[in-house]
């Protein structure tokens, strides 16, 4: 992946909806155009977060599976 994240949220060990709520907080705080990356060890977050990103109209750069967690990378577009 060649996009560099501006902010990484390590939400590993926290369960749904923890990681999503962390991302929502970050989206509220960051400027448009910034790339935010959430790390989650909870599989349902890896599904729910992209669904929320779509509804909220931001850009999902990707969901990347690491050894025992997921990296969900999002660009704030509005």
């Amino acid at each position, binding site marked *: 992946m060649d996009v560099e994240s501006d902010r990484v949220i390590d939400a590993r060990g*926290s*369960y*749904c*909806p*923890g990681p*999503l*709520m962390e991302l*929502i907080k970050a*989206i*509220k705080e960051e400027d448009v155009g910034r790339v935010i990356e959430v790390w989650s060890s909870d599989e349902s977050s890896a599904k*729910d977060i992209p*669904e*929320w990103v779509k*509804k*909220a*109209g931001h850009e999902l750069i990707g969901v990347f599976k690491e050894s025992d967690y997921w990296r969900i990378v999002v660009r704030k577009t*509005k």
Partner: protein
Amino acid sequence: MKRIVILGGGVAGTLTANYLIPKIGDEIRDRKVEVTLITDRPYQIYEPGYLYLIFNRLGEDELRRDIRELLDPSVRLVVDRAVRIDTENQKIICEKETHDYDYLVIATGARITPEDIPGLKEAGHWFYDLEGSKRLRSALANFKGGKIVISVIGVPHKCPVAPIEVAFILHDFLKRRGVRDKSQVVYTYPTNKIFIMDPVTEMIQPMFDERGIEYRTFFNPIEINAKEKKIITLEGEEEDFDLLVAIPPHRGAQVITDSGLGDKGGWVPTDRYTLKADGYDNVYALGDATNLPVSKAGSVAHFQAEVVAENLAAEIKGIEPTAMFNGKAFCFIETGWEEATYIWFDYFTPPQPVVPSKFVHFVKIAYNKAYWLTARGLL
């Protein structure tokens, strides 16, 4: 003499004190230990009662007790507001006095911060503090029909099931008042489901449908337009209302943030099993004050108080503290005016609600009175 200081006189602090004293009776008598509880108000409020106060089913006086009346007589009570916790020098700096401790128990709870959402204070109602509940009681009594939006704005918030309960009771309240057919009830939730726990969602969603309670999900309010009575969300949606019943955002106590002991939300990072504050061997944290992924509920504070009391007593007696919190929580869920279910769960067991019944509701009504025995450490 060893000094144990408990900060906060809510469910967590009071129960820790009342469970601890009988375990260290000899040490207290021999003046080897002193237990002090510091709290900023001379009374305790039974917060679950707000859910009944707003419908005029319980009065203010029934929700409040003098804290001295609840505490074991051997506990030294200090009514003062802590402004800083100095863990390096083991001191609590209060507005009037400073107190030294050998062991500290943080039980400062959670507070609502409606000011975090512009317009919410002006245009919103809530049942998360006494003043807000009294205002909502009057708004509900005067409600003649229209659109009520129950909106969960912040997670985490106290009592995860309270927004569901208020939706169900409100539905019946409007029916009893003869205005349900002139009213729309809408419930909103931040995530993609109407509740965080799947087994509960599976049970309540069809019950919402049956009652015509509408819901919106992935709904995260960022602003309330007070003039036009509209909620504006991060997802770019708008929802208008005649009466907004909000679950406001929550944060930990100010003193936690001011002492550098909290995370961004002001919650104390805490070990999920030992309930020791991360990085401190002589500081415990419990109840709503912690960052633990457990419900912010009085029942959780109660079960945690048993663990903290047992471990503190062991430490005082020079025994290894081995009690562990297993995540246990118990919640009643009112599903109507006179009907309820309940759930219990822990770190290893998911909740499984039972079929709602009148019986469970009446147990809850009885518990609303019996709570004062729990607070005294008797039940």
